[in-house]
């Protein structure tokens, strides 16, 4: 495909329409210190040898698994990726496919999406899943937008303060310029969301709670759903670690109307934070208000089975400004990865793997407890938990990085009241020796 950049006339014409004098005016909403003032000063081109040496040196600044032992989760998780997934993804039929614009000609792609959707609905316990969205954060923002579309006269939504702080910022960004307001719910001493305020909020269209939440704690989704439904609001179950649902009760059976979140855990490398996979599933009642593409299975005139894009009348290319969402693309390759991962792991495998994550995490919790450290919150956890360290730990944390151990995420920048609290994550990638070594280092 040829690429035609905008000409300066094109740019001038577009600026005139939106009412900006210059390109810089157009970008005025981007904070000043994030904008580059002068042009890029690129160094001279390098030879292949020099370039490889240069890249190797750059990579030394980064802590990458498995070279480092990294106990970070907080929205991005280190999981073992089966060789079969990596191999299949490299097949060009898959790796070159984009959301098909002439979809029905690409039966293989559509079937793969259909399988993905089916696996997602089974995991989350809901009726319909879309063909995926950009990432967990935008999926949550779209879930709120969908709630406002369903509860047309309501102008507020409530979000747990224990939803990933970065997701909350994306949600804020979506709604700041609108008439809709996002109310934050505080958290209880035990590390779960305080649902008591829900009853007081007027014009409530939806309530979103993440489980496991940002502190790793498992939320009582059923109570949250009941509190939301009492206010005639939708309940959105959000997640950053879907593997937890290999073990936990799924969101659907606990009353969620929408379940959405990040699917990176399912075979997608962490890759410095992206790309991710926005998983999104709803009850059938709401399917016409759901954003994103949807693949259905049907029969053709000769009775042969086939796959089609369905309910496309919700989408932007048909409904224009009345579409359910601006998103009419999906994360095809990442969704496919997740489908391959789930298929390769299987129902029993997902349960075992989730159990392994939980057990290893409990082991570390116990060992740290024996060493006199305090787990900050009492509520049960999955593969992450918060430790209240003594003040001296900050120096130790730095020191451990030198030893190629990243001992958790300091929470103080997200929760100022939680100084010296660290969020630790343990997945199946850590061995008992790793965990013992971590405890020995921390307590030495």
């Amino acid at each position, binding site marked *: 495909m040829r690429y035609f950049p905008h000409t300066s006339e094109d740019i001038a014409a577009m600026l005139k329409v939106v009412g900006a004098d210059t390109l810089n005016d157009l970008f005025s909403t981007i904070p000043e210190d994030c904008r580059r003032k002068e042009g890029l000063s690129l160094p001279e081109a390098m030879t292949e040898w020099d370039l490889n040496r240069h890249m190797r040196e750059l990579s030394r600044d980064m802590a990458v698994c498995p070279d480092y032992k990294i106990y970070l989760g907080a929205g991005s998780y280190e999981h073992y990726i089966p060789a079969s997934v990596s191999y299949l993804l490299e097949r060009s039929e898959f790796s070159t496919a984009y959301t098909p614009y002439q979809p029905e000609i690409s039966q293989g792609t559509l079937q793969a999406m259909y399988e993905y959707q089916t696996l997602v609905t089974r995991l989350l316990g809901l009726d319909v899943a879309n063909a995926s969205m950009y990432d967990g954060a935008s999926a949550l923002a779209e879930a709120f937008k969908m709630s406002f579309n369903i509860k047309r006269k309501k102008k507020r939504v409530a979000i747990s303060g224990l939803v990933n702080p970065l997701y909350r910022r994306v949600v804020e960004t979506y709604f700041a310029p609108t008439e809709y307001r996002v109310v934050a719910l505080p958290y209880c001493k035990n590390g779960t969301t305080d649902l008591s305020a829900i009853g007081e909020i007027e014009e409530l269209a939806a309530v979103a709670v993440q489980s496991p939440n940002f502190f790793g704690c498992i939320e009582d989704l059923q109570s949250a759903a009941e509190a939301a439904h009492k206010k005639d609001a939708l309940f959105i179950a959000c997640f950053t670690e879907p593997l937890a649902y290999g073990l936990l009760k799924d969101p659907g059976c606990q009353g969620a109307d929408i379940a959405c979140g990040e699917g990176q855990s399912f075979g997608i490398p962490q890759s410095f934070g992206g790309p991710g996979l926005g998983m999104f599933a709803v009850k059938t009642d709401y399917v*016409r208000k759901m954003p994103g593409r949807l693949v259905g299975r049907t029969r053709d005139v000769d009775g042969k089975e086939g796959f089609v894009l369905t309910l496309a*009348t*919700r989408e932007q290319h*048909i*409904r224009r400004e009345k579409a359910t969402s601006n998103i009419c693309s999906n994360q095809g390759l990442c969704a496919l990865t997740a489908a391959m991962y789930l298929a390769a792991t299987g129902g029993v495998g997902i349960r075992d793997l989730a159990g392994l994550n939980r057990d290893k995490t409990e082991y570390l919790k116990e060992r740290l407890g024996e060493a006199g450290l305090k787990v900050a919150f009492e509520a049960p956890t999955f593969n992450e938990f918060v430790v209240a360290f003594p003040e001296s730990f900050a120096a130790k944390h730095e020191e451990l990085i030198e030893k190629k151990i990243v001992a958790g995420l300091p929470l103080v920048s997200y929760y100022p009241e939680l100084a010296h609290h660290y969020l630790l994550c343990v997945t199946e990638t850590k061995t008992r020796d790793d965990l013992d070594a971590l405890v020995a280092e921390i307590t030495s």
Partner: protein
Amino acid sequence: MKEITELNFPEDIRYSKDHEWGKSIDGKVRMGISDYAQDQLGEIVFVELPEVGDIFQKGEECGTLESVKAVSELYMPVGGAVISVNSQLEDSPDLVNSEPYGSGWIIDVAPSDASEMDELMDRDRYMEELKGIEP
């Protein structure tokens, strides 16, 4: 799609420019879409109805009709409060195609201004309007 002369436009109802019809029955106004509108849309697969108690101005969007190929909005022929909706359409949206003036009715409205009915077109004017649309 059919020729205009093949379509059915009863005498006892009034028509809007947006191809809705309204009929006064005992002080309320029943509304639906015209035979022309259903014929243009094709097979209707879903009707999104407003809620009883919703209040709309004349010309305001009060629901949507989804056909196999498109979605179009439903506009109020007269302003007022929705007093009942045809819930049969939830399971049988095709009634809008087969009986647009009968069991395919969409909502009943308590009109806020009865004179708005007079602003709608009678059969002859509506058919003239349609002839203006058709090439």
